[in-house]
């Protein structure tokens, strides 16, 4: 078997006396979706920032294609094919889809004063890249603000893949979405996997993770509390593991007399 595109081995991160991450090991092979699950404060953000090249781990190794490396910056990570899609998506709502897609790297034609953005090319690429994720655009010139939350995620993912990402790290892409939109995002993730992209899918919702994940890494208080293959774990177990099942149970007991069986059941 070939080396995974990206692998971290026993990485830890300390901020002063605070240990944010301890001995985390995970791999992202091509064409697999690795779900990174954890509640708020579990260390997800710290791990993303290490994967994305924002922070360097205090100890541990970072490997790309089996070679240990040290990332200098997010730009360095990007040039090695590791792209991060943050929750704000780095998009400008009033700007059209194709202008957002190529922002900062606009392809041009013509020379001298007649140098201009190759608009026909841009619109065609945007249409193609999005249709490969299963989104058929009405008009690439419509503002990004007119897209649904899920479609915006698709644009950001398509942009990352188009500009050479082999691993796409998605920071809570379903967090602010309704059920239908979240479902759409899961389909985009599956499509990206079909194209051989490694996906790191960060979420605190096991119901979102379970349908698409090939592997589930559960983080709690900065440590890996579980690492399962798709066949090794059921949704209920995943949900229980994640938030700490005993805590949920205690909460259910607490609320029971008040809410007649209550919402936590």
């Amino acid at each position, binding site marked *: 078997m070939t080396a995974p595109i990206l692998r971290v081995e026993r990485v830890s991160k300390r901020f002063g006396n605070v240990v944010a991450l301890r001995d985390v090991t995970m791999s992202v092979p091509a064409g697999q979706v690795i779900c990174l699950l954890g509640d708020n404060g579990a260390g997800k953000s710290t791990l993303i920032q290490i994967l994305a090249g924002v922070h360097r781990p205090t100890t541990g190794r970072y490997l790309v294609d089996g070679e240990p490396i040290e990332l200098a910056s997010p730009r360095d990570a990007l040039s090695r094919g590791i792209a991060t899609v943050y929750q704000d998506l*780095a998009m400008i*709502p009033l*700007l059209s889809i194709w202008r957002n897609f190529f922002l900062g*790297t606009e392809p041009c034609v013509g020379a001298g004063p007649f140098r201009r*953005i190759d608009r*026909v090319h841009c619109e065609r690429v945007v249409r193609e890249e999005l249709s490969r994720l299963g989104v058929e655009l009405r*008009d690439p010139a419509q503002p990004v*603000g007119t897209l649904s939350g899920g479609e915006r995620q698709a644009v950001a993912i398509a942009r990352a893949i188009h500009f050479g990402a082999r691993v796409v790290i998605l920071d809570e892409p379903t967090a602010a979405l309704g059920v239908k939109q979240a479902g759409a995002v899961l389909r985009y993730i599956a499509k990206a996997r079909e194209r051989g992209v490694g996906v790191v899918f960060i979420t605190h919702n096991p119901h979102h993770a379970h349908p698409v994940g090939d592997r589930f890494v559960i983080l709690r208080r900065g440590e890996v509390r579980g690492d399962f293959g798709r066949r090794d774990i059921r949704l209920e177990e995943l949900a229980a593991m994640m938030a700490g099942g005993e805590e949920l149970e205690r909460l259910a007991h607490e609320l029971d007399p008040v809410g007649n069986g209550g919402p936590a059941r």
Partner: protein
Amino acid sequence: MNGVTALGVAARAAGAVPDRMTSARRLLARPELGAAAAAMLVWIVFALVAGPPFRSLEGTAAVLNAAAPLGILAVAVALLMIAGEFDLSIGSIIGCAGMTLMLLTRHYDWSLWPAIGVAVALSLAIGFGNGYLVVRTGLPSFIVTLGTLFAFRGLTIAVSRQLTRRTQLGGLDEVSGFAPAQTLFAGDLFGQFRVSVLWWLGLAALATWVLLRTRFGNWIFAAGGAPEAARKMGVPVARVKIALFMTTALAACLVAVIQAVRFTGADALRGEQQEFRAIIAVVIGGTLLTGGYGSAVGAVLGALIFGMVQQGIVITGVDADWFQVFLGVMLVAAVIFNNFVRRRASEAR
């Protein structure tokens, strides 16, 4: 990349969507739509009320001539406002550049062209200063340029008085190099139109090209729409903004030169309130005060509405005091309408 295939694919892709619907939606999303309707309305009203003197070629020339200086400013201000910033200092730059021209030529006996060169350099420096201060301090450009507005107005008056004991200087037509400058900046076209109209429309065309077809234009929209996101995508937001502050200053300098040559003199107080009029014209033209959305064509229409109302009021014999009332009402109406259009254009359907 094979260009022919690319076009073929694009045509097929576009065919997937009903063409007429797409182009209709694109038209409706244009920022200047409201201003175009307003301009037509204003023209019809004055064409009916003021009659032939307004509708004639002379009337049209008078409107365009009146709108041109404001239009030149408005086009530059539109670019800056799309990038999310204000420039209130342009009024004082008009006075400052004009007096620089007069002092160098009349007080220090320079010939005209080197003096124009210095006025341009000085204006660009002021623009750079505005931009640098805004970008470095992170203060609202409204405050920074309000400061420079007062500082340079005061400086212009103080220096002129110190050197010449006057705040108005004339006699530019006696300076060497005046004749070609007159042709270039204050000449006539077809007898009735001033050449400044050509400057105005030419600059508007250039600004439209830059906005819609170049990378820099894309960056202008991005810098105003969501500066943080733009920075993340590698757009040099600070450089874009500084360049645009220099552009508004340069436009103010051009207006100063045009007026100094036309009136063969300058006044330290010239350009007063032009900063507000330019902003009003730009807002009427559909550009958002908050940035990220707008057009140079809209700014042209905004300035055109100004010119029409100004001339129309003169021709109909209405007291000119009503001009200001009209402007105020028009401004607020435009902002309300623009907010509505923007919401239509940017919200999920």
